[in-house]
């Protein structure tokens, strides 16, 4: 999980939501084996190394439940 952090307790589940699963261009999200405290099933990232840090998952998550580490050497803030 080097480049991605999943806030499992904020997640509303791959079944009911599942937007990250859809939006990852590499299709790296699969349902995890556990449910969070609210009964939702968070995703899990299958192949960390294949992640390009495109940030789709972070940007599309309606619950701000996925954070992507900043790419090294990348432009910080766009004006």
């Amino acid at each position, binding site marked *: 999980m*080097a*480049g*991605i*952090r999943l*806030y499992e*307790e*904020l997640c*509303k*589940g791959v079944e*009911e*939501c*599942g*937007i990250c*699963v*859809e939006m990852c261009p590499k299709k790296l999200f699969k349902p995890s084996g556990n449910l969070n405290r609210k009964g*939702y099933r968070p995703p899990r990232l299958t192949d960390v190394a294949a992640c390009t840090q495109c940030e789709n998952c*972070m*940007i*599309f*998550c*309606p*619950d*701000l439940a*996925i*954070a*992507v*580490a900043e790419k090294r050497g990348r432009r910080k*803030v*766009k*004006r």
Partner: protein
Amino acid sequence: MTEIVHPLHRFIRPHVTSTTNCPGCGNGIAAQAILRAIDELGMTLDDFVFVTGIGCSAWIPSPFFDVDVLHTTHGRPIAFALGIKMGLPEKKVVVTSGDGDLAAIGGNHLIHNARRNIEMTVICLNNRIYGMTGGQAAPTTPLGLKTATTPYGTFENPFDISELVIAAGATFVARWTTYHPRQLTAWIKKAIQKKGFSFIEVITQCPVQYGRKTGSGSAVEMLREYKERSISVKEAAGLPKEKIQGRIVVGELVDKEAPEMLEEINRMRKRASGEKT
């Protein structure tokens, strides 16, 4: 290695532990886009006052954002926002509200403030339904759709809210969908910086009251539909009207200049005290 932290979590009100959105709600994507826009502009939430009405989208900043927020009565946020802007002209005043709140009960305030070109940003989360009350038809609901109050299908033509606002005189109007959060962020930044009435229409999925209730699909299916149906302003310009029917024209629809109300009030004050303007 330092812990990864979501860059926008610092904007969330401390006691709020999660969003109140249904799973897959497009409002959440829009909420992030707004916060990202503010962050990328190098501004803080203390530069803003948010004003909302009644409905799911009214809960985008209330209580989620750690900001001064006025959560008002149904249809009226723009009218309250005008008063706030009069008293705090240096703050950015942003209204986030839904299609029902802004264009049905609130229609009058929407068109008049577009006409006044008062500097404020109105973000209309258009999910084409009344979500919070359980899926009733809205003035934006497509003709023929079965909803809670139109069980045999709607029988009214829907609004094109952006066209309405353009006709009323708004000087900055753009439309995107929740399939386009990056573009949404970019245009929200532009809207915030516009010295006039800026309006962003966001076509957003309501997976429960629209998607499930009317049989239009899940959050993911609705996002796919937005992707399919979207067409840029440029493309649409080259097509006959029938070809645009059923498509979602996305992009910047208007960016023009017109006298802005606060500036006109200052001129008026000078006239009142006998100064030459």
